[in-house]
């Protein structure tokens, strides 16, 4: 056991930093640094740069075109990207459907879909939740009926993140309504341009549009787009969810967030002194920083055991729980630091990128919307209640 990086790892770190500095577009970096919302093109430019380098799918094994990073390299890569204000990699292609395809897909599917994911030429989104199927995902009712070489899909998906930007969607659909809930589900890839698909925005509490409802009205999908066997989609679904939970802890982003919070606390005044000198507030930051460190080392332990051969187990649910709580606490403390200047609501500045000047400092108007928006982290990717249910059952045997 050793916490120090080897000379090779050190060299790798330098290499990553040099790459990010050279390839992350300055305007994108600026948006991330100032907490502004990114457009599709912002993500694409960065992801395509990573794609060319072969690093976009940094979690993939070599044989599927990944760089085959060691856990230490993954750790270094994620942390440096966060430190350098790179946008988070959109997970739907690289971390979700990609691994499902190379694990459960056939050769034709691998040949067709993996390259565009690796290079970020195609934008994917996820079709899991439905209005009546949230925590109870297996109760989903979107139907796919076989009709010759096609499935005819009818139903609706919700909480679909960035579907308005997507080229493809991967969906869980019901192919056998008579079987037990988990047993009649299939995993289907659907081209978003297929006739019959409608995307309707859902407006969030902070006024933003990032999620959608997606409606399927007699959508014709080739049977060749079925991944794995018909009615065995639940296996893919579970595999994907466990993968999702690992990255969802967002440790590097939270570490960066703590530093940004300290900057704000240095800039804000409290009785004529920087807020960071207020003991109560400084202790709150310290407490959060310790939580982040605890999470980071837990994640490292999990990664390390995975490196010795192993899929992420149900204990990663614990990472998701703590990671999401930390993200929320970070936004809560940021809002506390900003104080009453969190109150002005400036949707133009927030969403449309207008030239409206902020009220107070640049970071102030983002504080409350982020706090409101981040409430989602304990809900999405399987709510924290569901995660605790998983640990209770799968880890503790209760």
């Amino acid at each position, binding site marked *: 056991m050793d916490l120090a990086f080897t000379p090779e790892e050190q060299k790798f770190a330098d290499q990553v930093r040099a790459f990010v500095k050279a390839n992350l577009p300055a305007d994108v970096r600026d948006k991330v640094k100032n907490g502004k919302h990114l457009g599709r093109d912002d993500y694409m430019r960065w992801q395509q740069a990573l794609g060319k380098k072969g690093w976009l799918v940094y979690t993939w094994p070599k044989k599927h075109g990944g760089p085959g990073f060691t856990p230490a390299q993954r750790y270094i890569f994620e942390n440096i990207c966060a430190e350098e204000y790179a946008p988070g990699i959109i997970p739907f292609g690289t971390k979700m459907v990609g691994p499902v395809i190379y694990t459960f897909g056939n050769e034709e599917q691998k040949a067709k879909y993996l390259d565009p994911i690796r290079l970020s030429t195609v934008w994917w989104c996820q079709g899991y939740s439905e209005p009546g*199927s949230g*925590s109870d995902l297996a109760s989903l009712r979107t139907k796919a009926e076989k009709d010759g070489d096609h499935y005819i899909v009818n139903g609706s998906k919700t909480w679909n993140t960035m579907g308005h930007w997507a080229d493809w969607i991967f969906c869980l659909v019901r192919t056998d309504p008579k079987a037990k809930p988990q047993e009649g589900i299939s995993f289907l890839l659907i081209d978003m341009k297929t006739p019959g698909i409608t995307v309707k925005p*859902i407006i969030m*509490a902070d006024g933003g549009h990032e*999620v959608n409802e997606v409606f399927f009205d007699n959508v014709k999908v080739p049977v060749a787009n079925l991944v794995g066997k018909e009615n065995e989609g639940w296996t893919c679904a579970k595999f994907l969810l466990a993968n999702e939970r690992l990255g969802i802890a967002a440790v590097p982003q939270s570490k960066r967030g703590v530093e940004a919070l300290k900057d704000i606390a240095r800039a804000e005044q409290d009785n004529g002194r920087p807020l960071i000198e207020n003991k109560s507030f400084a202790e709150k930051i310290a407490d959060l920083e310790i939580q982040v460190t605890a999470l980071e080392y837990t994640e490292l332990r999990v990664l390390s055991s995975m490196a010795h051969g192993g899929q992420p187990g149900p204990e990663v649910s614990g990472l998701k729980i703590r990671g999401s709580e930390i993200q929320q606490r970070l936004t809560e403390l940021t809002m506390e630091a900003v104080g*009453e200047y969190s*109150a002005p609501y400036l949707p133009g500045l927030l969403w449309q990128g207008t030239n409206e000047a902020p009220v107070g400092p640049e970071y102030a108007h983002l504080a409350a919307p982020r*706090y*409101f928006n981040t409430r989602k982290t304990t809900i999405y990717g399987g709510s924290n*209640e569901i995660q605790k249910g998983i640990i209770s059952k799968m880890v503790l045997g209760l």
Partner: protein
Amino acid sequence: MDLSLSDEQKQLQEQAERFVRDKYAFDARRKIAATERGWLPENWAQFAELGWLGMSFSEEDGGYGGGPIETMIVMEQFGKGLVLEPFLPTVVLGGGMIARSGSKAQKEALLAPMIEGKKQFALAWLERQSRYNLADVSLKATKEGAGWSLSGHKGVVYNAASADHIIVLARTAGSAREPKGLTLFIVDGKAKGLSRRDYPTQDALRASELTFDKVSVGADAVLGKVDEGFAVVEDGVDRAIVALCAEATGCMDAINAATLEYIKTRKQFGVPIGKFQVLQHRMVDCFTNAQEARSMTLMASLKIDDKDPVVRAKAASGAKVQIGKSGKFCGQSAVQMHGGMGVTDELSVSHYFKRLTMIDLMFGNQQHHLTRYSNLAMAA
């Protein structure tokens, strides 16, 4: 010791409940929030007609002789409906400060018309650097003949755009953050040299940044005594805090009721999610938090007229700590138990959550008031 409402107070409660039911259905509120003013003159006229604008003022001042309990009753219902009319800045803050510290002429010119619904107020105390220190004021008022000239900046002034008069806390003497040397001025909302940047707030109220560029006012614009404004504004803010706490208890009742209803009807795994013990216990904790918030608000409402300013300050800060804590717990829990629906704009729950969040930040958050209470308790 008696904790029951009188018959008149019960009637007032029913009246306020009826107003919220009739005028503040969720969609109706959304429409009011989208108007330019952000509130409805016809509702304000109704408040005047019902006597709410004068209920907490003495008969001598043209009011109806009520007090903090009446304010509590109405504010609680306003919280249930997320009412947008500027009752707090106009009646509780502006009206209250004028009634307690204004001259006879000021009361006649301002308070009487306010009670009739013809004048509105705003309090401008906060500056960019102030955080929650009421004495951290750098806007300067300098002598100019018989009167004064005001220059500087004020921030997040609620209701400034609609206010006929703005009560401005200015430094007339002393150094930065010194409580002595602060003076309150009543400034015409359309005064020359006063410019505004108006904006909505996270919770759909209206506020403004104000810039004062040599705004001239007469000697009669001083509210209370020159250099002695701090005690007036501190007391005014403490009373506003207590009223705000009552609004928050109403918000908590409403958000808890909505959540309870949701977990009884939303089904997952074949049963209403309220059948799961984790959610049941969290719902119970919400209920308990709201109870405690109500208790502390009641305590503060009963003590805010105490003669001893330390008793008043401890009551206000104590209640504000509880409201901050309970409001956050109920708000966050409600969103969590609503799942994805809780973070959408579509349901009322996110709107209550936003209001509860902003209430915590207003006039000092939970941490600020805990520190203040702790210092007062140790000094005792």
